[in-house]
C-alpha cells in the first residue's frame, strides 16, 4: 500500500490547483468549480488519513463534506443565476459596484 505521504501530497497538489483556479479564472462558475475541487482534495486526504489511522471518523467526515458541498452548490448556483439575470454577466471583473 502506498505510504500515506503520497496521498497527502496528491491532495496538496489538487488543493493548490483549486486555489489557482479560483484566483486565475474570470468566470464565476469556473471559480465555483475550483472551490469544489479544493473540497474534494480535502476529502481525499480525509480518506487517506482514515485508512492510515484505521479509524472510521475520516470516512464519516467525507460523507458530511459531500452533503455540505451539495447544499453549497445549490445555493451558490442560485446566487450566480440571480447575478446573471440582473447583470447579464458573471465575469468576476465586472462585479465592481461596491469598492473603496
Amino acid at each position, binding site marked *: 500500500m502506498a505510504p500515506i505521504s503520497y496521498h497527502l501530497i496528491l491532495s496538496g497538489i489538487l488543493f493548490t490547483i483549486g486555489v489557482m483556479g479560483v484566483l486565475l479564472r474570470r468566470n*464565476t462558475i469556473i471559480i465555483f468549480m475550483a472551490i469544489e475541487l*479544493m473540497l474534494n482534495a480535502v476529502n481525499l*486526504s*480525509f480518506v487517506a488519513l482514515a485508512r492510515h489511522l484505521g479509524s472510521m471518523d475520516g470516512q464519516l467526515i467525507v460523507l458530511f*463534506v459531500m452533503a455540505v458541498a451539495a447544499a453549497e452548490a445549490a445555493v*451558490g448556483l442560485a*446566487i*450566480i443565476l440571480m447575478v446573471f439575470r440582473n447583470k447579464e454577466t458573471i465575469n468576476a471583473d465586472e462585479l465592481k*459596484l461596491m469598492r473603496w
Partner: protein
Amino acid sequence: MIKLPPVNWLSLLPAIIPAFTGILVLCWDLGMKNEERHRLAWLGILGLAITAVVSFCLLGRNEPAFNGSYTLDSYAMFFNLIFCLAGILTFLMSIQYLHTSDIHAGEYYALILFAIVGMVVMAAATDLVNIFLGLETMSIAVYVLAGIWRQRLQSNEAALKYFLLGAFASGFLLYGIALLYGATGSIQLGKIAMHVNEHGASTILLIGVAMLIVGFGFKVAAAPFHVWTPDVYEGAPTTITAFMAVGVKAAAFAAFARVFLHTLGGIHGQWEGILWVLAVLTMTVGNITALVQNNVKRMLAYSSIAHAGYLLVAMVAGKELGGAALMYYLVAYGLMNLGAFGVIIAVGRRGEPNEEFADFAGLGFRYPLLALAMTVFMLSLTGIPPLVGFVGKFYIFSAAVKAGYLWLAVIGVLNSVISAYYYIRVIVSMYMHEGDKVPEKLSARPALAVAILIAAVGTIWLGVFPSASMALSRLSFLALG
C-alpha cells in the same frame, strides 16, 4: 432492529426550538396575506425568546451529548443568549424595514432562524465536524440572506462575493481539520487536547493550526482576510448586516475560542505570536480605513473589523482573563452595533437609504431622542466610560496587561483614539452641522424604537453596573474546564 443510541435531547433543545420555529414560519407564510407578514416576525421573536429562557435555565449544567461531539455547558448557553439577543433585535428592526424594501418576509425570517440554529450548533460543538457543520449551516443561510434583496444590484454582488470567499475559506478550514485529524488521530476536541498536551506540536499539526487560523480568520474578519467585509456589509440589507456583524462574528469567535483557548491551550506559545500580529493588523487596518469613509454603514463595517481586532487581543491574552473578556466584549459589541445599525435604519426612508454622513446633519436637535441614542452608541463604541464599550475594552486590556502583552494594550489604546475620530464625526454631523433631512417619525415604527431602546438601555445599564454580567462571563468561560 437498529437500536437508536440514547439521545440527550435536553442538550439539543436550544437548537431544536429555533429550527422548529423556522419551519412554523415557513408553513404559516404559505397561507398568509401580504400585509399580515409582520406577524411572522412576532412568531420568530416568540421562538427566540423561548430559546433564550431555556438557555438561561440550562446555564449551570454541564453534560456531554452524542458521545462527546456536542455538549450542554454554560459556555454554549452564554453564546446562545447572545445569538437570541441578536436575532430578536434583528427581527424587531426588520418588521418596518421589510416595508421599505420589497423583501419577501417568509423566507427572510425562516432563514434567520435557521442561521441561528447553525450558530447554536457551532457554539455547542466539541468536535471539529460539528463545528464545520454548524458553520456551514449558518453560512449558507447567511449567503442567501445577504442577497435576499433581489432588486438591488449591491445585494446580489454582496451575496456572490460572500459566497465565493466563504466557500474558499471553508476549504482552508476543512483542510486544517483534516491535518489536525491526521496529526492527532481524532476529531474530538477533548482527545485532541490530551494528545497536544502530551506530545506537543508536530509540524503537521502546526500547518493544520495555521489553516484553522485562516478559516476562522475569514469568518471573524481578521486583518488579511477582512477584505470581503466592507462590500458585503454595505451591499446586504442593513438588518442583515447588523445580524452578520453581531451574530455571525459571535458564533465564529465561540468556535475559535473553544478550539484555540481550550483545546490548543497547551501550545499557546506557538500560535499566540500569529494572533498577536493578526490582532494588531486587524485593529490598525480597520481603524485607519474607517477614517476616510463617508458612508456611515461602510464606516461601521470597518469599525466591526477593528472590534474583531480587540477581540483577537482577548484571544492572545489567553486563558485566565482573555476568554471571559472575549465573551463580555461580544455582548457589549453586540448591543452597540445592533443599536447603531438600528439608528441607520431609522434614518433611512423608502427609496433613499440616507447612509452618508451628510444625511445625519442637523439630526441632533430635530430628533433629540434618536440622536441621543446614536450618540450613546458612538461614545460606547469609542470606549468612553461609563458605557459598556469602555467596560468591555477595560476588561480586554486588563486581560492583556495581566498576561504581560503590554505593547498590545498600548497599540489597542492608541487605536481607540483613532477610532474616536470617525465615531465622533457622526456626532459632529448630527449636532454641529445644519441639515434638513426628515426621517420618518420614530413613533410610526414602534418595533424599531423598542429595538433601539433595548440596545441603548443595555449599553448604559451594563456600563454603569457591569459587575453581574462580568461575573457571568467569567464563570461561563471557566465552565469550559
